[in-house]
């Protein structure tokens, strides 16, 4: 006679479930364990017992050659399935997966995501107690949606389906059901029940949060006796209200029954671990013929299965994993320390806060626990849960501040755990995709350092460059950009790289695999995530970096994000700093043949905001901020010149004009504005002379005038060389200064002149000699018209001789020549 079948309906990643299950298995001592999961992965199942295998890990299964359609099955140490697998492997008894093979499921649905999401919604909406297959889709749905958009193979309904999936299963249900199950028409009631069986139970129990209900009834239960029987009965009652499953759903349960039948033929006590919802369907094992008929003739597809390390972060809802849990860290805490969980948790939180130099006394911990317990009592709960503890911590230790609470949520509730996979585990899809590219582009990874010169006009080289840029974005720094000898400049069609493959890069690839299964997909996702946190400056740099990586799909959202960030940026300097990269991208982006993003509206928006904010931002600056502002002016100026658009140039000229005339501006900024106008050709000699004489007129304090001159002259002396008017005004102003005023501003002038090049200085010196004519100089200026006095000139000779190192003629020491002060 066939053996006994014991059914354990569980919820995913429920520590209470896991503990109860473990205890139940130990009491039962089964000789065979069946776990709801893909039989395709049985080849690698034994690796789960490996010493080196440390959860969180995930089973990764994908159709051969199409890793982007992969399904993930994450396991944490507190997942009941994991405990069941470990129990079985530890005892040396057979452990089997018993779901419908993914080989069939991949083959059944050409649309990768439509099928799993279809499958997911009915059984278990978000995370309750159904199956881990459901775990798979949403994590990849987001990236997949993009990838799929490219090949255009999907129907619009699928897209909508997936996006809705991550937030709310309700909306996702309707379209997928009709497509997946050959037009079954469900009443509203029925759909609700299927979507949220626990919700119906929770409501009946007077809870409005089904999650909470399950938590209180199952996870926090200290005594597991009768638990699984209770779950089975509850689910049976629910399913009695509900028409039997059809289509794919029915096939899954048929497949499970089939495997159970096979197992009980050989074994005496079979333990079946499955999602709570499926439990009742597996009790009655009659109808083998009907099941076989249902499963007959299903297409198959070759699949590949492997283990990959997983993180708690990826197990949360937040990461888009639909069957995720909110707080894996809390669950692990419950798993490790079931007794006095609240006290331990509060203490851990306090210690965490203390490490961050936040006050958290032991007295505070006591109050946290008391408050959490009172809250639990007020809410009629037997024990405080995470919600009560979080609120108590927020109220007592964090004084209502959100930041420390976020820290606790991030560090403790989620945690940083990263799993490990033994060496023998097969390779991740991203790595395979990378290898494919390496083969195609003939870029063998090697431990040697190798220089690579690329000519971007050749297709292969362009692809190589694109690949390397993408890897850089992913943090896999296989190649390092080196300066091409000679010319630099982003428009250049040459690139030079230095390549070296290091073992730790393999780890980086696996980590990057969390973003997506192909290099392109992963890069897009990575950029998307990076762009959600970055500031304006980082965003523009990111934009500059993704262009050579040729991921067009990532550009529009990034541009939208830039717009949004720019709209609320109050700091004009930051906008100014962000403009040059944008200008470069806009100017040179198309050189690489990449799809050119239309940046014009963005740039217009940026410049518009800069121009509006420029005048106020230049008011009442101190010297340091004036220097920064001048730098910013230079950056914008450079960008404008690069963009070479007359409308922008005009707007910029107007802004500079206004800036120059604003009295409240720092004089250095005004001087610089004059200089930039000069460069734009907006200011001619007479105008400049006028402006200079105004700025240098005696009504101003000498230091302000000197600052103006510094703004105008700094960087290049050509203005002085070519603009006689300036020369004269400056000369006149200098000569009219009193001695102490001159001493006071001399350092400023020196600074202004310090960056003049030698040829410039020489030209100026020559000009000093030749420049005659009328001047506004006052009486104490030595008059160039006076004939040379040989006797006085001879006095200079000894000094000159000393400088030049030749024999000096006898002469009295020369007086200081005032002209020496100048350049």
């Amino acid at each position, binding site marked *: 006679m066939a053996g006994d079948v014991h059914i354990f309906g569980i919820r995913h990643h429920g520590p209470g479930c896991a503990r109860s299950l473990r205890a139940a298995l130990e009491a039962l001592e089964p000789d065979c364990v069946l776990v709801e999961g893909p039989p395709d992965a049985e080849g690698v199942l034994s690796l789960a017992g490996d010493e080196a295998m440390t959860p969180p890990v995930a089973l990764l299964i994908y159709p051969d050659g199409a890793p982007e359609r992969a399904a993930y099955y994450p396991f944490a140490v507190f997942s009941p399935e994991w405990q069941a697998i470990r129990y079985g492997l530890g005892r040396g008894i057979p452990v089997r997966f018993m779901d419908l093979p993914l080989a069939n499921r991949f083959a059944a649905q050409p649309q990768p995501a439509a099928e799993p999401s279809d499958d997911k919604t009915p059984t278990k909406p978000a995370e309750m107690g159904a199956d881990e297959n459901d775990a798979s889709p949403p994590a990849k749905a987001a990236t997949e949606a993009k990838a799929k958009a490219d090949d255009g193979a999907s129907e619009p309904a699928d897209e909508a389906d997936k996006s809705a999936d991550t937030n709310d299963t309700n909306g996702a249900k309707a379209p997928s059901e009709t497509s997946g199950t050959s037009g079954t028409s469900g009443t509203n009631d029925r759909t609700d029940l299927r979507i949220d069986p626990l919700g119906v139970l929770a409501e009946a129990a007077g809870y409005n949060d089904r999650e909470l209900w399950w938590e209180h009834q199952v996870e926090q239960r200290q005594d597991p006796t009768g638990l699984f029987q209770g779950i089975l009965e509850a689910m049976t009652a629910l399913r009695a209200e509900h028409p039997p499953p059809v289509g794919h759903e029915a096939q899954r349960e048929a497949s499970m029954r089939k495997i159970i039948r096979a197992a009980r033929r050989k074994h005496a006590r079979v333990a079946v671990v499955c999602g709570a919802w499926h439990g009742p369907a597996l009790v009655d094992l009659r109808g083998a013929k009907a099941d076989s008929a249902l499963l007959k003739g299903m297409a198959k597809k070759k699949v590949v299965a492997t283990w990959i390390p997983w993180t708690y972060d990826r197990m949360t809802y937040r990461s888009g994993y639909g069957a995720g849990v909110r707080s894996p860290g809390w669950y692990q805490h419950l798993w490790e320390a079931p007794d006095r969980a609240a006290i331990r948790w509060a203490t851990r939180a306090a210690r965490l806060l203390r490490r961050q130099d936040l*006050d958290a*006394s032991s*007295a*505070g911990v006591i*109050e946290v626990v*008391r*408050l959490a317990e*009172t*809250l639990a*009592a*007020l*809410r009629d709960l037997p024990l405080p849960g995470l*919600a009560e503890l979080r*609120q*108590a911590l*927020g*109220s*007592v230790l*964090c*004084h*209502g501040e959100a930041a420390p609470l976020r820290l606790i949520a991030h560090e403790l509730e989620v945690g940083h755990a990263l799993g490990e996979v033994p060496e023998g585990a097969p390779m991740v899809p991203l790595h395979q995709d990378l290898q494919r590219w390496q083969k195609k582009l003939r870029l063998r990874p090697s431990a040697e350092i190798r220089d690579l010169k690329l000519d971007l006009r050749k297709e292969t080289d362009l692809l190589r460059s694109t690949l390397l840029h993408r890897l850089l974005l992913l943090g896999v720094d296989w190649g390092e950009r080196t300066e091409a000898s000679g010319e630099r400049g982003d428009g250049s069609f040459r690139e030079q790289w230095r390549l070296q493959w290091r073992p730790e890069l393999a780890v980086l690839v696996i980590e990057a695999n969390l973003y997506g299964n192909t290099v392109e997909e992963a890069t897009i996702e990575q950029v998307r995530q990076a762009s959600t946190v970055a500031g304006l400056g980082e965003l523009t740099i990111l934009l500059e970096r993704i262009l050579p990586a040729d991921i067009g799909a990532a550009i529009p959202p990034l541009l939208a994000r830039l*717009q*949004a960030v720019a*709209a*609320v940026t*109050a700091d004009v300097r930051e906008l100014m700093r962000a403009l040059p990269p944008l200008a470069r991208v806009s100017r040179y982006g198309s050189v690489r043949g990449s799809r050119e993003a239309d940046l014009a509206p963005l740039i217009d928006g940026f410049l518009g905001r800069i121009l509006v904010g420029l005048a106020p931002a230049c008011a009442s600056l101190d010297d340091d901020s004036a220097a920064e502002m001048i730098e910013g002016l230079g950056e914008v100026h450079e960008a404008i010149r690069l963009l070479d658009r007359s409308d922008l140039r005009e707007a910029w000229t107007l802004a500079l004009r206004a800036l120059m005339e604003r009295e409240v501006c720092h004089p250095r900024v005004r001087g610089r504005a004059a200089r930039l106008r000069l460069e734009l050709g907006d200011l001619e000699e007479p105008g400049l002379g006028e402006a200079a004489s105004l700025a240098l007129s005696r009504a101003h304090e000498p230091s302000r005038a000197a600052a103006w001159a510094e703004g105008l002259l700094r960087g290049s002396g050509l203005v002085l060389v070519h603009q006689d008017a300036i020369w004269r005004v400056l000369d006149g102003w200098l000569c009219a200064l009193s001695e102490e005023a001159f001493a006071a501003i001399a350092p400023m002038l020196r600074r202004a002149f310090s960056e003049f090049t030698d040829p410039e200085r020489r030209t100026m010196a020559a000009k000093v000699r030749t420049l005659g004519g009328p001047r506004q100089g006052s009486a104490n200026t030595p008059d160039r018209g006076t004939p040379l006095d040989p006797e006085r000139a001879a006095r200079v000779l000894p000094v000159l001789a000393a400088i030049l190192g030749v024999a000096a003629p006898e002469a009295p020491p020369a007086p200081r020549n005032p002209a020496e002060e100048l350049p």
Partner: protein
Amino acid sequence: MTSESPTQHVKTDAKTDAKTDAKTDAAEAGTPPRPQILRPHAEELFAEELSALRREDERPRPPGWVLSPWATKLYLLGGTLRSGLAIRPKYIGSARLIEIAIATLATDRALLLYGVPGTAKSWVSEHLAAAISGDSKLLVQGTAGTDESAMRYGWNYARLLAEGPSAEALVPSPMMRALEGGKLARIEELTRVPSEVQDTLITLLSEKILPVPELGIEIQGRKGFNVIATANNRDRGVNELSSALLRRFNTVVLPTPATLEEELAIVEQRVGELGRSLELPAEKPALAEIRRVVTIFRELRGGKTLDGKAKVKSPSATLSPAEAISVVTNGLAMAAYYGDGEVKAADLAASLTGAIVKDPVQDRLVWLEYLQTVVKEREDWKDLYRACRDVLG
């Protein structure tokens, strides 16, 4: 101080309370007719609900409490009693916050209600005191001039000089009376109280004893004594609470309402009540107008439009529900006295602009930008756009 203006009606009300108190005392002694009170205490206003709750309350009560924590929660959040009496919600918003507040008081810890101005801190504190102690009158109104006698005790100097220190010469503070009576004391605007006066709370809260060395006695707190303080976190740094004091409080931050519907409910309910008490002849304002005001407030406060499509800059004003209430009430008054009784965009424009533009330069720009980019674009908001532009000039 400007950011406080919309909540002023609350504060001034509280002040008149003290005055009317004195008046009623006098009146009781002399002529019977009670003067009309502008704003009765919570326990008087909701006496019926409270007594009904007390009758039905069967859950255990902490010592000194008039109602059990469960009944208190029902009183604050509203619901229906077995007798069929509907309890009006006093606080519309997160039930969890109210639960934390009640649980805090039940664990004998002092409660600090924190939040931007106009988020019903005083309102919640008054109703908690009314429900738990049956008495919301033990109130210290914190100001920069509050001294120790408001937290401990003062003296009747005439008697003190005539008779020397005696129990009769002692003037107990609300805090002292709460300690003796086992009731809740309320401190408003704790952060405005000078630090040295705040310090007197430290030992009072941990030891629940108030020694009177002049008389050689001490007042030992009776069970049920506790303190609810409110403070607003907008003018932080006025008299920042010391960490020693902060440690003795559990902090509950009252947020601005989470959803548009919630905020609408608050504004509508309060505008209705205020309109009645001010005897405004205008019709009840259309929900559409309230919705517009609340939408504008939420968008400016949140920094983006409600459909999430566009970013907007936020002004320096708090834009709390209390301010929305005051804008709508103001519009109601405008419509009643100068208009045809029906609230229109023009009636709202002036007070709306006044509530948003607190800083004449920065906020004006923010408001203008918002008008141009958001309000102007909305088809059925043209009237509001024109009215606001007229006000801005």
